[in-house]
């Protein structure tokens, strides 16, 4: 929030004046009020492996993160470029595979990848869109220095927190929104529905019927699934509600079976269709892939997009962006060592204490090593895992992430953050101004994942 000489950075100017006029005790009270709103509304997530505390609140910090319009425009351009490249990449690897033939990406990295679905080869999803919803994770390391951490093209979660955070802030501090011109995020559910409906399959006659597919109430993101269905005004379905009848996916209603045209699924590829993928899946719909291939349903995001979330693929993103857009990537990648390569593995093992090591298929901050804060024993243990399966890991330097202020008992204190803007893709790319800011609540910590004790805050993109 502050520049080097301790004056507020320009977008924070108005907020800073307001903050200075507030009674700190009152703000702490407001902070508790916010927590009560979240608890009452049941805005919770589940942490797997905690039997007792099956539902948790994500801590919410009441100080907004503020981004200037100029800063946002640059980011948005970079994100759009990246999302278009991702879609072109997916289309290519499931069709002509020119990027492989051009020698820019090793063939085995694609074809031996567990997230690569041979079932998708030669099939074009409705509208040619693979990634209907993307949540690009971005960090900042300097005034004009942004890095993309992850692309999250499979099923980015957290958008309900973006919306509830804004709602809560407007309830608690209405005056802030008249003093600052903050760009709207509230239209997200409406835009999402529009965007999904616009990509209805060729077999859909009349108004497309959209539904959200959830694994059920015990899923960690169930709140978000019900929130999105509710705010879009569409049915929230489970696999057991759906059946393939007469070449269509239909849901069991109190009046009989009714067809669905667009399915926003929050169920992983593996579980989507027990006839095609995991036969033991009880979450999916037997035969949905046949309906999909015959053009009678749209699945968002398309099966097989998960390969973009692979961290080894990530390391090739600069090449991917350049290959498909003909321009250098506007947003930088974090330098990444692929441990599958002998020289890189050697370097990583020698520099473990300064690197972050991640599993290529991991997410949620699980199974990673943060070298600088890990103990000697943790590093030694991890080194063994690395040597045993080098291709399962990549390593990145720890970045000096930017900090933003959070409210603590003694006033405000700096904490590290990242940013996940949400992107909707149809025949155009729509980026919601702002996104979800995740914040590491522990002093000095770099891990922002909610499953690891991170919190969130409202994110403002100001108007010009």
């Amino acid at each position, binding site marked *: 929030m502050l520049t080097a000489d301790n004056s507020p950075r320009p977008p924070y100017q108005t907020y800073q004046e307001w903050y200075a006029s507030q009674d700190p005790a009152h703000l702490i009270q407001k902070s508790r009020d916010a927590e009560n709103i979240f608890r009452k509304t049941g805005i919770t997530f589940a942490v797997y492996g905690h039997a007792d505390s099956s539902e948790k609140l994500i801590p919410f910090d009441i100080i907004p993160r503020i981004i200037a319009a100029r800063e946002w425009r640059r980011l948005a351009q970079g994100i759009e470029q990246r999302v278009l490249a991702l879609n072109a990449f997916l289309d290519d690897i499931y069709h002509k595979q020119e990027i492989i033939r051009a020698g820019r990406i090793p063939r085995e990295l694609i074809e031996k990848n567990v997230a690569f679905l041979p079932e998708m080869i030669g099939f074009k999803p409705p509208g040619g869109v693979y990634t209907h919803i993307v949540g690009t994770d971005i960090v900042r390391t300097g005034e004009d220095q942004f890095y993309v951490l992850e692309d999250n093209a499979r099923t980015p979660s957290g958008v309900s927190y973006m919306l509830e955070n804004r709602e809560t802030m407007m309830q608690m501090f209405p005056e802030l929104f008249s003093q600052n011109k903050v760009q709207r995020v509230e239209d997200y559910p409406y835009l999402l529905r529009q965007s999904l409906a616009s990509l209805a399959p060729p077999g859909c006659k009349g108004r497309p019927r959209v539904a959200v597919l959830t694994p059920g109430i015990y899923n960690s993101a169930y709140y978000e699934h019900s929130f999105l269905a509710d705010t879009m005004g569409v049915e929230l379905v489970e696999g057991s*509600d759906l059946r393939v009848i007469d070449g269509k996916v239909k849901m069991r209603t109190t009046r009989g079976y009714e067809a669905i045209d667009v399915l926003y699924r929050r169920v992983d590829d593996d579980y989507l269709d027990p006839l095609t993928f995991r036969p033991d899946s009880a979450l999916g719909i037997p035969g949905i892939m046949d309906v999909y291939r015959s053009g009678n349903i749209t699945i968002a995001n398309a099966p097989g997009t998960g390969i973009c979330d692979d961290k080894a693929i990530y390391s090739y993103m600069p090449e991917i962006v350049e290959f498909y857009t003909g321009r250098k990537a506007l947003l930088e990648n974090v330098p990444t060592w692929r441990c599958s390569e002998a020289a890189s593995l050697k370097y990583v093992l020698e520099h473990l204490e300064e690197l972050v090591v991640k599993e290529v298929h991991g997410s949620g901050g699980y199974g990673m090593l943060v070298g600088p804060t890990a103990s000697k024993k943790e590093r030694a243990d991890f080194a063994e895992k690395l040597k045993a399966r080098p291709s399962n890991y990549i390593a990145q330097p720890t970045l000096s992430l930017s900090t933003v202020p959070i409210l603590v008992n003694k006033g405000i204190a700096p904490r590290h953050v990242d940013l996940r803007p949400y992107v909707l893709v149809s025949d155009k790319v729509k980026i919601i101004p702002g996104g979800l800011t995740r914040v590491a609540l522990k002093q000095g910590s770099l891990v922002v994942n909610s499953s690891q004790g991170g919190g969130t805050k409202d994110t403002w993109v100001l108007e010009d």
Partner: protein
Amino acid sequence: MLGRTANGLYWMFRYIERAENIARLVDAGLRVSLTRAGSSDEDWDGVLQSAGVRDAYASVHDTMTAANAIDYLLRDTSNPSSVMSCIESGRNNARMVRTALTRETWEATNECWIELKQLLSRKVKAADLPEVIDVIKRRAGLIRGAFHGSMLRNDLYNFSRIGTFIERADNTSRILDVKYYVLLPAVSQVGSSLDNFQWESILRSVSAHRSYGWVYDGEYKPSSIADFLILNVRMPRSLAYCYEKIVSNLHYLEEEYGERHKAHDTAATIKAMLKRGSISDVMDQGLHEFLEDFINRNNQLSAEISEGYRFYR
């Protein structure tokens, strides 16, 4: 609307109704132990039986004590009909159908769960019991209030109401069935204080001890008590009242969907039987036999509703 959603609403309201009824039973049991000289822990046996959990209790506890019985009824989560289990199941169903509930109804349900989870996290002290029972009833009332004040009168509403009344009819008939013998003319000695206390405890279990006095001129008579709880359509927990409501809610569904199911006929038959009959007919048939038959038919109706509206298949 999804068949699973109809099912979720139906069960959400069955569980909330059951939680409230269990709290009433505990309240009545407590009252007995406070007011009757010579009352013993054994009196709780009847309360557990009314709640339908006597055998389950016996498999967990070797002896019958008031403290154990109350704990089992209120907070033991191994008992699927304890107040805590019912609220937990009710809320889980509410979460499942969250998109069908108004925000107010959901929040009232969620807050009920939050408060009771806290309140019932450890054994309830005897001194705190009245307050705890009060909170349960009040919280259930808040859910009902939010529901009535904010839900559209459509199929969602009707499935929720049907769940409430099927459960209530079941609970009232079970309460009566456990105590049917004290209502039999042959064995009751009119005016004895033992009978008076037994009867009052039945009425109290359905929160009807005051209203009974108004309707039947303050005269405790077994046949009047049975009449009140079985046939009186003005008594909101009577079987006749429940069936008035079930039939009218099913009728709205028939109108909205333009479709009639087996359940409609079954409900209409039961309603007609309750409307036509007199309490002496019931007594002639045998109160216990009558109630047993009713409970079966009520269950059958529940199964027909889930089938007709595709709750599961």
